């Protein structure tokens, strides 16, 4: 194989490799052909349409968004909180967040 190596050893290795490769397969060609034919004729497992995956993801995102919005509204809803009557009415760009049942946080957003 290589002038640097022992040609005799390399030749013997190639001969051993040929003997190793030449052993008959465990399945005869006819058995193998029958197996391949059987597998080739199997109906592939029914797969869901490709568009279904993004559609399912969109539905999950939509439901999550709606749920988060409802939670946000519940947090700022003044009707079921004590001390609500004392809160200042919200003006333009103002947001009220209840940090806990008794602590309102007013934030005002303005354009720079």
């Amino acid at each position, binding site marked *: *194989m*290589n002038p*640097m*190596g*022992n040609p005799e*050893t*390399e030749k*013997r*290795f*190639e001969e*051993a*490799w*040929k*003997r*190793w*490769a*030449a052993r*008959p*397969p*465990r*399945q005869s*060609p*006819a058995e*193998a*052909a*029958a*197996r*391949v*034919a059987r*597998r*080739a*004729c199997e109906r592939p497992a029914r797969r869901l349409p490709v568009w279904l995956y993004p559609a399912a993801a969109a539905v999950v995102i939509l439901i999550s968004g709606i749920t988060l919005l409802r939670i946000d509204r519940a947090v700022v809803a003044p009707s079921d909180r004590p001390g609500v009557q004392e809160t200042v009415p919200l003006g333009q760009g103002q947001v009220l967040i209840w940090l806990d049942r008794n602590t309102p946080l007013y934030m005002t957003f303005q354009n720079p």
Partner: protein
Amino acid sequence: MNHAALVLQAQGGDMDAYSTLVELNWVRLVRFARSVTGDADAEDVVQDSLVTAWKKLGALKSPEAFPSWVLRIVARVAFRHARRHSRLTPLAAAENLIDPGSDRDREWVDVEHVLSLLPPRQRAVMHLTVIEGMSDSEIGASLGIAAASVRSHRRRARETLLPALRRMELQGGTES
């Protein structure tokens, strides 16, 4: 009936014709897969490849190219399999390269173990060179690589194999 006629029939959906093609190529493909993946998984790899080949048979433009086309499919599946089930043995750890088989069928060298020292593509190139006696251009066409790459793979494979064979000589593995 020759390969091309059988391929044309198989492309028309004739499973009997395809089964004949499988029978004609089975032994050659298993031998190739053995050298790339090892003995244990070779037949499964070839079977998977032949099922894939059946599904893609319509894409084969020239029916007479079936033997090299199917070999390329087997090579691709075998490379993927060999990468996933990498059993490469570092040279330093390759202490016992003498065949551990029974006395009756004992070979002077554990061929599979020696081959496992090579990356899958080099095993494929060496198999097609040593076992099939193919030319560089034929090997390149079968594996989908340039003839220059074939020579490069073969040179690197020999650079790896030589120290292993020398080590084996030092171990006394050359004694018959």
